[in-house]
């Protein structure tokens, strides 16, 4: 992981990434600038591989503004995570934020969205549910192979 260049890096990070079962839950606590967004993207994609996550939930409930760069990053993130085998759900978009986004012509059509964490988990369970039996199979295969 690259060392943070920010001198105030002992402050709590603006994003916390938690592990919950096979999922990663990333909560964004404050508005992120472009550098922080990049770093967040990097960290998250890195951890998808490290923890073999099947799904990612990104909680943006604390954000008052989601601009075009943030939207772009979120879209990319979902695609990158998809390449590494994880589905992404964005949760917690406020009514005002949602309306502002569509008025600016921003869309997240390629990404799953859900109301809140609960809903996001439900979406992920459904999205990865089909894989679960397969995953069980591959695990068994691995054990027999050993």
């Amino acid at each position, binding site marked *: 992981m690259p060392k943070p260049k920010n001198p105030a890096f002992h402050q709590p990070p603006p994003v916390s990434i938690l592990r919950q079962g096979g999922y990663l839950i990333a909560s964004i606590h404050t508005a992120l600038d472009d550098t922080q967004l990049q770093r967040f993207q990097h960290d998250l994609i890195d951890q998808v591989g490290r923890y073999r996550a099947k799904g990612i939930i990104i909680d943006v409930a604390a954000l008052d503004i989601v601009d075009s760069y943030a939207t772009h990053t979120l879209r990319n993130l979902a695609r990158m995570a998809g390449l590494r085998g994880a589905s992404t759900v964005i949760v917690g978009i406020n009514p005002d934020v949602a309306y502002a*986004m569509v008025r600016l012509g921003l869309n997240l059509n390629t990404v799953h969205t859900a109301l809140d964490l609960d809903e996001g988990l439900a979406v992920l369970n459904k999205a990865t549910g089909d894989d679960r039996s397969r995953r069980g199979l591959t695990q068994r295969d691995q054990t027999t192979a050993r």
Partner: protein
Amino acid sequence: MTTGDTTPDRQPGHDMLLPELVAHLRENRSDLREKWAARITDAHLLSAMTNKEIFSEATSVYDNYVEVLETGNVEALQHYARDLSERIIPRGVETNEVVGIVLLLRDVLARSLFEKYRRDFPLLNRILDAYEPAANRIANTVAVSFVEERERVIRQQQDALRELSTPVLQVRERLLILPIIGILDTQRAQQLTEQLLRGIRTHRAKVVVVDITGVPEIDETVANHLVQTVDASRLMGAGVIVTGLSAEIAQTLVTIGVDLSKLSTVGDLQGGIEEAERVLGFKVIRSGDAET
């Protein structure tokens, strides 16, 4: 009316004449007030009110009127006029009636002044110089207050109507319906979107059925707005089903070429609700014979 020779001593005259005028109006209060009330009735103004009510309102207006003449401070009168308007607007009193009664009072008082000073014409002129601007200002104040109050009532009703016109209703757990009735303009479409998005959050909705059976026509802006509403709802994790597109609207939308590929539409409200139930995993089963 104003002659040249009164102009030089007009300013000092003002200060002395106005108190004299006020004293005169106070002295003849009951007489003038009755005259005024009689003239209101004769002119068939304030027909929505009884004679007794007219007289009591006339008394308050009269006293306020004299007070404004004396102090030149219209604030109290403004307040009273607003208060009065609030009371009489619901009873169907029209603007012309209110303006009419204030002008009548002005005439009644002016006439009494003519009568009193008819022997001394220059003095009458000076008295009228003092009286007229003040009286006009009062008439103005009352009329403006009345109209403002009326406008406020209208605005309030408009807001209430707008609020009522777009109810967001929950029909099942996580299923909302939004029946839209009447013309959709940009402002209403915006308000509707905001209300819907808030509704999605409060009711934790997953599916919303937007029924536009009651919408007679739609233009490109509003159609695009509808698409935005659908997008915004999706950002909050709720799917939108649009139902009840009339033949005219369907034709308009296709003719003007709005991209509706993102909308899922179902013919009527019933079909929309059934589709929503299917998405949410509800199954409605008739439990036996219908009651009644």
